[in-house]
């Protein structure tokens, strides 16, 4: 009895996993090269970026909010990363991570202290952050000649294992531990499930929310670093597509937009699904005109399958 219930409890994750294997199977039937090591490396590189930004995003979505500024944070981080790596060397990594943390912290402050819905607050800050990126450098920046070695720390590999996977896994492990084994992680779930009760139970809502946004900024910063390193460049529009992608990754994995249900593990599966979808359609050679249409249909289908709507009385 106990076992059964437990399975029912995490069912959406199984469905997401099933969805993932289904897609792998279909794409492999479509073109056998899909499961080659080379392609796996390509996919996982993309997945690492989606995962990093998605892990940040899920912290905010679990509280019931949304962070529309992750793309701008990635852009700003990429620009600053390229600007400072020549002078600061390896110190550039902590510097831009702190930058991401700071941007997330700012979001958290605005949402919790000014009491503005996160959709609006982060829509506003994304404009501010992107302006800062433009002011720092309007034109695209490349890696300075002397710093390729430093950037290639990200791009390198240990045998067949690419370093980005390790970064992705470490990040995942960190976020997983945060969600499952810290008070902050629980606090995020409590707020998402019932904010009023959390307040009445003495939780420091503002602090938890600010931290959730700070984590989101951190995830975006890591994603920005990987993206910047993968492309050897930084410029203000580099992260533009990641706002919606990060949300897609979270919801495709089965996390509810209303908060309090789902989590980090779902986001891992969501980013795998989105990663292989993007890659698989190209590998099996779907007409580029039709890819976007398929992507749209598939995200709806994916969410329809993975998202547990029975618990929701109201669908907004």
């Amino acid at each position, binding site marked *: 009895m106990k076992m059964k219930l437990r399975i029912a409890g995490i069912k959406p994750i199984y469905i997401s996993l099933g969805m993932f294997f289904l897609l792998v199977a*279909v794409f492999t039937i479509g073109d056998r090269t899909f499961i080659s090591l080379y392609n796996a490396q390509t996919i996982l590189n993309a997945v690492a*970026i989606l995962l990093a930004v998605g892990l940040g995003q899920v912290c905010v979505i679990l509280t019931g909010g949304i962070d529309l500024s992750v793309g701008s944070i990635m852009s700003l981080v990429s620009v600053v990363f390229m600007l400072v790596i020549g002078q600061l060397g390896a110190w550039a990594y902590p510097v831009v991570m702190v930058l991401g943390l700071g941007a997330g912290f700012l979001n958290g402050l605005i949402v919790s202290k000014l009491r503005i819905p996160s959709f609006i607050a982060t829509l506003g800050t994304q404009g501010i952050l992107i302006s800062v990126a*433009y002011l720092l450098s309007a034109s695209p920046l490349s890696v300075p*000649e002397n710093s390729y070695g430093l950037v290639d720390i990200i791009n390198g590999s240990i045998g067949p294992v690419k370093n980005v996977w390790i970064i992705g896994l470490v990040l995942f492990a960190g976020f997983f531990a945060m969600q499952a084994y810290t008070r902050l992680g629980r606090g995020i779930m409590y707020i998402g499930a019932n904010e009023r009760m959390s307040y009445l139970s003495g939780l420091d809502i503002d602090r938890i929310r600010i931290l959730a946004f700070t984590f989101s900024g951190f995830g975006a910063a890591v994603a920005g670093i990987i993206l910047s390193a993968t492309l050897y*460049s930084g410029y203000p529009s580099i992260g533009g597509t990641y706002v919606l992608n990060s949300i897609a990754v979270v919801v495709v994995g089965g996390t509810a937009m209303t908060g309090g249900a789902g989590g980090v593990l779902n986001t891992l599966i969501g980013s795998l699904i989105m990663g292989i979808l993007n890659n698989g359609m190209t590998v099996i050679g779907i007409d580029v005109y039709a890819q976007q249409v398929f992507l749209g249909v598939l995200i709806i289908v994916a969410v329809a399958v993975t998202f547990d709507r029975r618990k929701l009385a109201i669908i907004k």
Partner: protein
Amino acid sequence: MKKTLVLVLAVLLALSVTTAFAQKASGVFMGTAIRSLENPYHAVWARGAQSFADSVGGIAVIQTCEGSSEKQLNDIKALIAKAGKNAVFSIDPNESPNVIPIAKALEAAGVYFVTYWNKPDTVKVTDYPHWVAHISFSGTLAGEFMGNELFKSMGGKGKIVALQGMLANTTAIERYTGLQAALKKAPGITLAAVDTAEWDRTKAFEKMKSFLVANPDVGGVWAANDNMALGALEAIRAAGLAGKVKVVGCDGVDEMIAAVKAGEAAATVINPAFWQGGMGLSLALAAKDGKINVKTLPVEKRAFFAKAVEVTSANIDSIIATYVKGTPKYDWNDYYGSYVAPIK
């Protein structure tokens, strides 16, 4: 539960449709990586690529990145995964520094490729044996030409406004540099206002409306591409100033050529997209087939400016006959026929 089942079936259906779309033909995969098919310039580019691929029995694969450099890189890698060495590429990098990872990936896979437009100066084509050529059209020259033609149409004096492209974009920056060079040589012209319309027609229209309020005596509009020039032109038309306030743009869009013909625009520049689409693949395929030996090519043939077609009221009729009414015939084996100058 029943619903879930239905949805799983829907996934299966959708995916079987997807697989049905998959290409099964054989031949050399000819990858064309461009920004988006939503603009006419790249749409023509894709047609050129298709036309060349058809002429040699290859498989044209058009990849659009919709503004995401990372998607462009991943798509290229996905095709490499699929085709291995049996592929060639012609690429318009989304942003200039992106050629580095793209070149590294293609080099590592041993795939010949040609790039266009965007490349940081520090990156040397000759460092990559499979990078057949980097071809560009001088944005500075185009910007300067557009400026000069605009000033000429204004009689060498008056106020102009300028609309820049995407702020961080190399081409946009180059063309604007060209305008500034032209301005230096034209003491009678003042630049009254500059703003960005992000290559976009609607935004150009809106910015122009506001410009016209602040500068009712504006004499001409310099726009970094035709799309924005046409947007500005609509605002000018709405203000009843069409023909009096002339615009210049760049790209050679059909509507812009018509505007030059009608006397509403002073000039545009055709960067022959159809040629780009075909020639990039042709060069890369020639290297793959051993028709040209990349190692022995002189440096100036590895990175060069190609011939852009300058359109003014003087040559408008022949332009219309060649580029609008017909498609110019290109000899895909004349690899360096459009060569103008090396990129330094």
